[in-house]
Structures are given as structure tokens and as C-alpha cells.
């Protein structure tokens, strides 16, 4: 059951409990997953770039910390650097900003989602995972306004449920699923078979 709709990018917002969640989600994606993935994970301002390296070592798909003016290409995961907002530019590259924190966060999920929604419109998939505040709730509103798809981790399944709950309260979301079901959903949305084993069968 491949999706007939064409998507251009996946944006993910995650806060406390994020490392574990991202390990599970990204670890299940194939090396050549056809969509670019943009991630804001709330992280301490002095954290350095260890997170991207750690995840890159654990997952098949390529994971890097976003550099300013990085071109957005498929099969690549871009992680917002500590202490900078991550934004999407119309010309298909990433930009960074040192503007004040939004929802007490820099990087902020709202900032990523709003700018990604403005560029990708209905071709955007936005995902809210575990987290302890409400960052992302405004962002998913922007995504829905521009016709994108919103997926929220089932709060009962989340390490910290507040962020998914805030997103659920903000909009009618398209999918509420536990983390374990998300890799299959992401494959389907990208036009792949839901499970690697089904590849080649139609």
C-alpha cells in the first residue's frame, strides 16, 4: 500500500527522551530513504555536535548536523545545531538563525515547522515526538494551514507526553501512532513498501 501523494520532506520535533526515540525511528529507515529529514531536538546550548555523530554511527541513513546553506538532499537527516534555529529557504537550502528562543527553545520546533510549511506546503510531513513542553503546537497549525500531513506520537507511548498532547490539542492530526509503528508509516508516505521484506512484491 504505497501512498499516491508525493512528499518532499519530513520535519521532526522532539524534546526530552529524544535521543532514544530518534535512535529507534532513524535506525529503522533504509540508507536510501528517499526524503530529506529535518530535525529539531531540544538540546543544551553548549552540547557540541556529538549527537549527530552518535546517531550517524548507529543508523544506516546519513545523519549530519545542519550547516548554514546546506542544500537539502534526499536520504539525509539534518539535525539543528545547539543554540541555533533551523529554517528552510525557498531555494531548497537550509539556514540558521540566532534569533531569541521561541517557546523557550533554540532550536525551536515551531520555527522549523513554520518555515518548512511555507516552503513545502502540502508536500511536508511533520512529526511531533516525546517532549516536556508545548513547542511544535504552533508549528503543526502552520503545517495544516498549508495542507501538510501531521503525525503525532501516541502520548501513552511517549517518554514524556506533553509535547504530543499539545500538538493533538492544537490541530486535527492525520496519524497518532506509537513510535514502533512510525518507520513503516514513513516508508509508506515515501512510496516504499511498509516493511523492507515486502520490497519487490509490488
Amino acid at each position, binding site marked *: 500500500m504505497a501512498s499516491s501523494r508525493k512528499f518532499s520532506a519530513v520535519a521532526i520535533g522532539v524534546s526530552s527522551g529524544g535521543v532514544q526515540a530518534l535512535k529507534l525511528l532513524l535506525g529503522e529507515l533504509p540508507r536510501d530513504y528517499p526524503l530529506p529529514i529535518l530535525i529539531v531536538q531540544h538540546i543544551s546550548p553548549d552540547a557540541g555536535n556529538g549527537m549527530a555523530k552518535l546517531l550517524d554511527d548507529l543508523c544506516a541513513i546519513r545523519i549530519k548536523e545542519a550547516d548554514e546553506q546546506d542544500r537539502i538532499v534526499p536520504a539525509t537527516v539534518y539535525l539543528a545545531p545547539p543554540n541555533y534555529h533551523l529554517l528552510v*529557504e525557498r531555494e531548497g537550502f537550509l539556514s540558521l538563525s540566532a534569533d531569541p528562543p521561541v517557546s523557550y527553545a533554540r532550536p525551536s520546533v515551531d520555527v522549523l515547522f513554520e518555515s518548512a510549511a511555507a516552503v513545502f506546503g502540502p508536500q511536508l510531513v511533520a512529526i511531533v515526538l516525546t517532549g516536556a513542553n508545548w513547542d511544535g503546537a504552533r508549528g503543526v497549525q502552520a503545517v495544516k494551514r498549508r495542507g501538510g500531513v501531521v503525525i503525532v506520537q501516541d502520548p501513552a507511548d511517549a517518554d514524556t507526553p506533553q509535547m504530543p498532547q499539545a500538538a493533538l490539542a492544537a490541530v486535527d492530526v492525520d496519524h497518532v501512532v506509537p513510535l514502533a509503528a512510525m518507520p513503516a508509516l514513513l516508508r509508506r508516505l515515501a512510496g516504499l513498501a511498509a516493511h523492507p521484506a515486502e520490497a519487490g512484491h509490488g
Partner: protein
Amino acid sequence: MQSKNAEIEDIEIRLLLEGVQQVYGYDFRDYADASIKRRLALWLSESPFETFSEAQSRLLRDPEVFVSLLQGITVNVTEMFRDPSFFRTVREQVVPFLKTYPFVKIWHAGCASGEEAYSMAILLNEEGMAGRYRMYATDIDESVLAKAAEGVMPITEMQKYTRNYQKAGGARSFADYYTARYDRAILSPGLKKDIVFAPHNLATDAEFGEMNMVLCRNVMIYFKPALKERCLKLFDNSLLPGGFLCLGLKETLERRKMGERYEELAPGSRIYRKRYGQ
């Protein structure tokens, strides 16, 4: 309908920036879209106007409205000793070179309200360079420069700045650098002695000559590639051989042609030294 409104707003913003350029001469058309849109939306939400079109007619006729827009667009959040590791590298690896000159000139481009300029002055003075340097601290926004020249900060920030100062290798008592008065910290006047605050627009103005060091951190991240390129050329033309170009921690010369003429001091430091004989 919603998405149609979004398209209209994109058009309104383009027209607004076009109008600002023609009436006031400030060119923001080469600023990266995503950030300037956020800043404009914030300005609009705090203004009495419903839409950018409504704002436009007042904006083009009333310079005061323009000044508020200018502040909204160019606001640069900064702090004293922001990125302490950067200042530590300057102290340990750049200052020894600067000390070999009888006098050095430093251009701090996009200094905003002056926090980093004063940080650099503290560092240079502690390293025995007081009176042996001149720092040209420039910004596009004259009202923010006036604030920088005052050298007054909110007292609530001082705890954080003290921590930053210590992480940056500062070993003295940070409290000696300011006087607390009510809710404000007044920086000691001695720090201003070697700093000249001056207006400068990176999008339209020319270079400063013969600099030993140029700092421009987290300013060009807001620019489109062409404007970024223009700035880097200005800095390259301003720097003497052996001079230092200091960028923000996420900015790099790696994929740039002029990068060949520079050497990064320590990997990831984003402090680049211009080679001799180029």
C-alpha cells in the same frame, strides 16, 4: 483559501522591501527569506497594522514607522562572551600574534548593542594591549549603535556574563568591569577608550582598510548567498596578510573560493588566518 492568503503575504513582503529600498535606501531584498519573514511577522503583530499592505502606506511616508521596522528586521541578539570557547581561542591563539604588532586595527562588523565588542576590549586589555589597538564596531542601525556607545546592560544578565567570562578564560573579578545602579550595569568607561562605534551597511558600503582582525559572527547567516559573498569580499579586502577573520561557530569558508587564501587556526574554531604572499 489559507494557502492563498500565505501567497498574498509573500507578495506583500516583496513589495514592502522594494518600497523600503526605494524610499529609505536600505536594501533587505538580499536577506534570507525564512528569517526575515519571521521577523517581519513579529513586527507586524506588535504594530497597529493588520496587514503588510496596510503598513506599507504609513511606512513609506513616516520615517518613525520605518525606524521601528528597521529595529525589528535587524535585531541581533547577542551576549557578552557569547560562545566562550571562541573568546578562549582568541585569548590563547590569536592575541600572541596581535601582540607582535606595535598597534592593531580591528573591525567588528554587525556589533549590535556592543556586547561582544566590550568583551573583546576586556580580553585585549587583560592581555596588556590597552592603548595598542583601535576597534571599529559597526552596525547598520544607528539607534542600536547609540545604545552600544552608552555601555549599559541589564543587571539581570550579569550572572550569565560572569559565567561566560570565566569559561572564556577570564581570571579576574568580572564585577570590576561594571558599576551596578538599580537594575542596570554600567560598564567601566575605560573599556570604551579604544572602541569607535560607527554606522556601516554591509549591503551597500565599502570596506575598511588595513585591518589585523575582522569579526563578523552570526550576521551573514541572515543573508542570501550573493550578499554573503559580497561581505566576505569586503572582509578579504580589508584584512592585511596574517590578519584574522572570525566567523560564527556554524559559518565556514570551506566551500568558498577565498577559503584557499585562509587557514583555520584550530579545526572548528572558525577563526581563519589570511596567508602571506597572496
